[in-house]
């Protein structure tokens, strides 16, 4: 199972930069970049922080697909 994310499109919809989003959830810009490109799977607490910030259910931002 692999984790997919809509973080990049959601961030672009709101017109935020990676640095702005990173500052909001307390991580580095590199972490946001790695999550958006699918290289890094965030912890549950970070996923929940992002969901709260975007005011969306966490499964709207992150999903699971078969395979890698």
């Amino acid at each position, binding site marked *: 199972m692999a984790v997919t994310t809509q973080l990049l499109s959601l961030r672009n919809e709101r017109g935020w930069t990676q640095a702005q989003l990173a500052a909001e959830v307390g991580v580095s*810009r590199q*972490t946001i970049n790695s999550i958006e490109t699918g290289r*890094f799977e965030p912890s549950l607490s970070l996923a929940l922080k992002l969901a709260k910030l975007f005011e969306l259910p966490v499964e709207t931002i992150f999903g699971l697909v078969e395979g890698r």
Partner: protein
Amino acid sequence: MVELTHGGTWLKWSTLERTDRNWAILSFVTSFLAALPIGLLSGEWGYRLGHRMGSGGAEAHHRSIQEIFGPQLFSTMMLGAAVLAAVSAFAWWRFSRNQDEMFNRIQNYALAQACCWTFAVAFVWCLLELGGWVGPLPLVALVILGFALLMGFWFYAVRRWL
């Protein structure tokens, strides 16, 4: 929050807060000072190993680091290195505590892998030594191996996640 640059070999200084910079500087300076006597020992170990492998030279006339500095000063140097290493580890722990999960995941992965593999090598070496196949494993060799593995796994983790 810190960002890693140059493939994980350096920290982007401008992303650090003032407190984190102070912890990082303290850790770097103390680890550098602690590494000086360790460097002398590893140099001596390398010399002896090279000699045993047939590089030539007169090992019989070679004075050990302990003989050069004398037992009193040598003991003080080793104690100083241990204290400085402990201070460095504490400062780095305080620095790491303020960083995000990406940094800590990379660091924890590298530390865990390096510790496991170093322990495995030491364990196998001890078994071989009990069987009379090899001589005793120098502690400094284990330290060098541990650091080399730590660096290797660190760079691997940076490439994987960053």
